[in-house]
């Protein structure tokens, strides 16, 4: 598994805003079918890293390789067109639109000859996807605001899965959910591994990190403290890495 | 109160602005005025009219106590001859709404339409359908462009503007013993209604009262500035015997200036009824008289003109309603005569 060529590889990435250093020096390989958890306290630099990977920020120095090729994302769209999708903490769903329109938000399917929306194809593809991922919603025509928090999270993850060919970034995927819904969403995340996607997940819940991840990467005040294989570490070690207290 | 009317009469302004000033009110085509008193429907046609069951529509430009009084006058006159008013509208100064109102009213096939056309240009097309379907049209103050009497319309009815100005001059002269100095606060804009009234006042003082002279003239375009204008005028002419103010709104400001100066001797005359101005008058303040139009009578004459046209009788093209001079002695009757409503409680 570790022998596989990394899908995305960050090499000595450094990011400073003016004189303020946000990320000291960061290297990480993300491989298909693997979940890496990014943990650290508030202000450790997790969201800056997510923004660098999703193309919102460009690193001050250091390189990003995509499938081994050096890459620079000009903006979020170019990251997206390279197969990288983000599931934001606020989900970025249009609440009053139906599920299928959200699935294709900004990338609507059209049909010839007039370039009108191909709603039936969008509905049908959405249906296939939610069936495949076993996301239980009343209908692909349901309005987002009629769905529960877990269902919305499911839709957001399904959308990312549909469009991502390489990597999905999950930002606090279950922060707003109850126990039962969290379990459903975790099952969903695990099932994504079989789709041959690399997954980078930010989470505050160490229990969840240990349940889901293959590796854990710890950040503290912009410094990469270390990467551990989940199976070969324990909570105490990770907590002391996060806090710096041993 | 009458500013709404002022806005409307641009059409007449175009015909008359810059033209000579006449010693009487004349129509847009130079027609001489016929007093409303001469417009009466013969009582013997009552049976015939009742039997024919005519209807009328009143399509106004806006709502005001003036319009209400005209409506009341017209409705009462129509009722006498068994003519039912089947629609009443207000265009709120919107030319497009007026057009729609006409179309809607025509659905009820009225025999007569009384209306104030919002302006000559936009109303020409608006009244076309009504004109062509033979509805008898009686216009208030304004005439759609290129409409010909008597083929296209029965008559235009308006206030006797010259008479209003003249009566204001007469009333001020009476209160001043026909002697003394006068300040003239006129409406500084090209508006037919106010220009006619203001100039009639001035002409009358100059021609009829040799012992009175207008020593101060000041134009006003914003009624809110009336008080400062009056202050300036009083500063330069502290012994003014009387002040004419173009209409009641600015007269309230002039009154405030007089009171602030402790002036109880300078007389004021103005036009159009207003409760605060009338209150000063009945309390023996500065206001000597208010000249108002007989709006109720104007409405009656509009209805009568329409009915006469319906009967195939000749209707004079230009009809004017008389003015009434309201003083402290006749304020209750004056109010009734002008607006056909009871005078406000405070001035009774």
């Amino acid at each position, binding site marked *: 598994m570790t022998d596989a060529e990394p899908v995305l590889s960050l090499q000595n990435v450094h990011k400073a805003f003016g004189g303020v250093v946000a990320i000291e020096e960061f290297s990480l390989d993300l491989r298909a079918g693997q979940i890496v958890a990014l943990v650290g306290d508030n202000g450790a630099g997790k969201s800056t890293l997510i923004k660098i990977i999703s193309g919102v920020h460009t690193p001050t120095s250091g390189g990003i390789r995509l499938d081994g090729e050096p890459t620079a994302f000009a903006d*979020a769209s170019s990251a*997206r067109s390279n197969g990288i999708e983000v599931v934001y903490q606020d989900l970025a769903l249009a609440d009053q639109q139906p599920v299928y*329109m959200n699935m294709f*938000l900004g990338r609507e399917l059209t049909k010839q000859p007039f370039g009108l*929306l191909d*709603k039936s194809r969008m509905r049908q593809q959405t249906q296939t996807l939610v069936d495949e991922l076993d996301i239980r919603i*009343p209908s692909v025509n349901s309005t987002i605001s*009629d769905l529960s928090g877990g269902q919305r999270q499911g839709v957001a993850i399904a959308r990312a899965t549909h469009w991502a060919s390489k990597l999905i970034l999950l930002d606090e995927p279950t922060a707003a959910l109850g126990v039962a819904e969290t379990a459903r969403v975790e099952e969903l995340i695990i099932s994504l591994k079989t789709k041959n996607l690399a997954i980078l997940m930010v989470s505050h819940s160490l229990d969840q990190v240990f349940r889901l991840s293959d590796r854990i990467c710890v950040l503290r005040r912009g410094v990469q403290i270390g990467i551990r294989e989940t199976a070969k570490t324990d909570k105490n070690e990770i907590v002391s890495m996060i806090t710096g207290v041993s | 109160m009458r500013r709404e009317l002022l806005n409307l009469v641009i059409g007449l302004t175009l015909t008359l602005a810059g033209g000579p000033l006449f010693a009487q009110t004349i129509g847009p085509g130079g027609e001489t005025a016929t007093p409303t008193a001469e417009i009466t429907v013969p009582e013997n046609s009552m049976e015939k009219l009742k039997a024919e069951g005519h209807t009328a529509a009143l399509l106004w430009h806006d709502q005001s106590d003036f319009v209400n009084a005209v409506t009341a006058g017209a409705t009462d006159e129509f009722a006498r001859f068994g003519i039912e008013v089947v629609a009443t509208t207000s265009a709120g100064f919107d*030319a497009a709404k007026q057009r729609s109102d006409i179309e809607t009213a025509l659905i009820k096939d009225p025999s007569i339409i009384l209306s104030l056309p919002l302006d000559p240009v936009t109303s020409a097309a608006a009244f076309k359908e009504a004109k062509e379907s033979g509805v008898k049209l009686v216009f208030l103050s304004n005439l759609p462009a290129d409409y010909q009497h008597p083929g296209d319309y029965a008559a235009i009815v308006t206030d006797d503007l010259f008479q209003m100005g003249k009566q204001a001059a007469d009333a001020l002269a009476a209160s001043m013993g026909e002697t003394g100095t006068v300040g003239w606060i006129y409406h500084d804009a090209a508006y037919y209604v106010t220009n006619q009234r203001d100039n009639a006042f001035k002409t009358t003082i100059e021609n009829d009262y040799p012992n009175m002279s207008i020593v101060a003239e000041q134009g006003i375009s914003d009624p809110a500035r009336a008080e400062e204008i009056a202050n300036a005028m009083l500063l330069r002419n502290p012994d003014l015997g009387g002040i004419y103010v173009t209409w009641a709104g600015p007269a309230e400001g002039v009154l405030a200036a007089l009171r602030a100066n402790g002036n109880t001797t300078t007389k004021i005359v103005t036009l159009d009824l207003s409760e605060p101005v009338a209150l000063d008058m009945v309390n023996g303040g500065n206001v000597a008289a208010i000249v108002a139009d007989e709006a109720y009578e104007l409405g009656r004459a509009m209805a009568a003109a329409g009915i006469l046209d319906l009967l195939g009788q000749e209707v004079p093209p230009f009809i004017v309603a008389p003015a009434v001079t309201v003083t402290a002695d006749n304020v209750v009757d004056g109010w009734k005569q002008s607006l056909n409503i009871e005078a406000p409680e405070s001035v009774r």
Partner: protein
Amino acid sequence: MERLRSRSIGTDIQQWIVYIGFLAIFLFFALTLHDDGFLTQRNLTNIILQTAPATIMAVGLVFALSAGEIDLSFGSIVAVAALSAAVAMQHYSMPIGVIAGLAAGVFIGAFNGVLVAYLKLPSFLVTLATMGLFAGIARTMTDLRSIPVVNETFTGIFGSGKLFSIPSLVIWTAIAVIIGHLVYRHTKFGAHVLATGDNARAAQVSGIKVPRVRFYVLTICGACAGLAGLLYAGRLQAAKYTLGESDLMTVIAAVIVGGTALNGGKGSVMGALVGSVLMGMLNNGLILMNLKVSDQMIVRGLIILLAVAISLRDTKR
């Protein structure tokens, strides 16, 4: 699950409320004004003709509101466009008049759009200001004079003319509503408008060019107001600075009653059409009922209040 289903049925009823309300009021007038000519073809045609300019303004406003913006200036745009067309026709030719009217609408709309989309000023304040600005310009353009429109080709195409015995105003309304509906419901642009009004951040991160959407919806509003100005000029055979001024509240009410959310993300062009005709039908019916003017206003106000209350009832979360 039960809760979900009942809520979406509620939403469905709410979507249909404008049509139900329209039918109810139509039936009421049809029964009570049967002898007063309400149901005559002439009267029903009148209602459509009278509401044509407002309907076209309403189509534009559906786009602006759906994108989370508002345009308060369209009434002033109507006057400027109508006067531009009338003046240009006096000096040049009919086609130049048409172009001048439409260009005035598009230009002012784009002006609003630049201020809102690229200078990031709130559309409520921008268009509140430009409403006054362009109302003033409309008054200055001709010194308050009304300008007659005598070109018969123009008054035919935009006013009293007919094509295959269909009044031209009906054709313009149909064109605006059909194109508006197609763009709104069946194009990427329409979807982006809704997404922008629904959740601008989500739209942005999904790659939708949010400022461009905002610019376009206000330009569309201006263009629709420009066309409405031409229709007024054609219908009245004249242009005047007051045109469109009193349409603001009617059009906003028509659009809201028609199911468009004031705060974006939801709307209907067809609903706006029905809402607009409903407003015209109310005016018409209340006059035919021979109510006093003040009573007409009171009844109309109450009915609009009721309709708006029902159509907004469950969009408040």
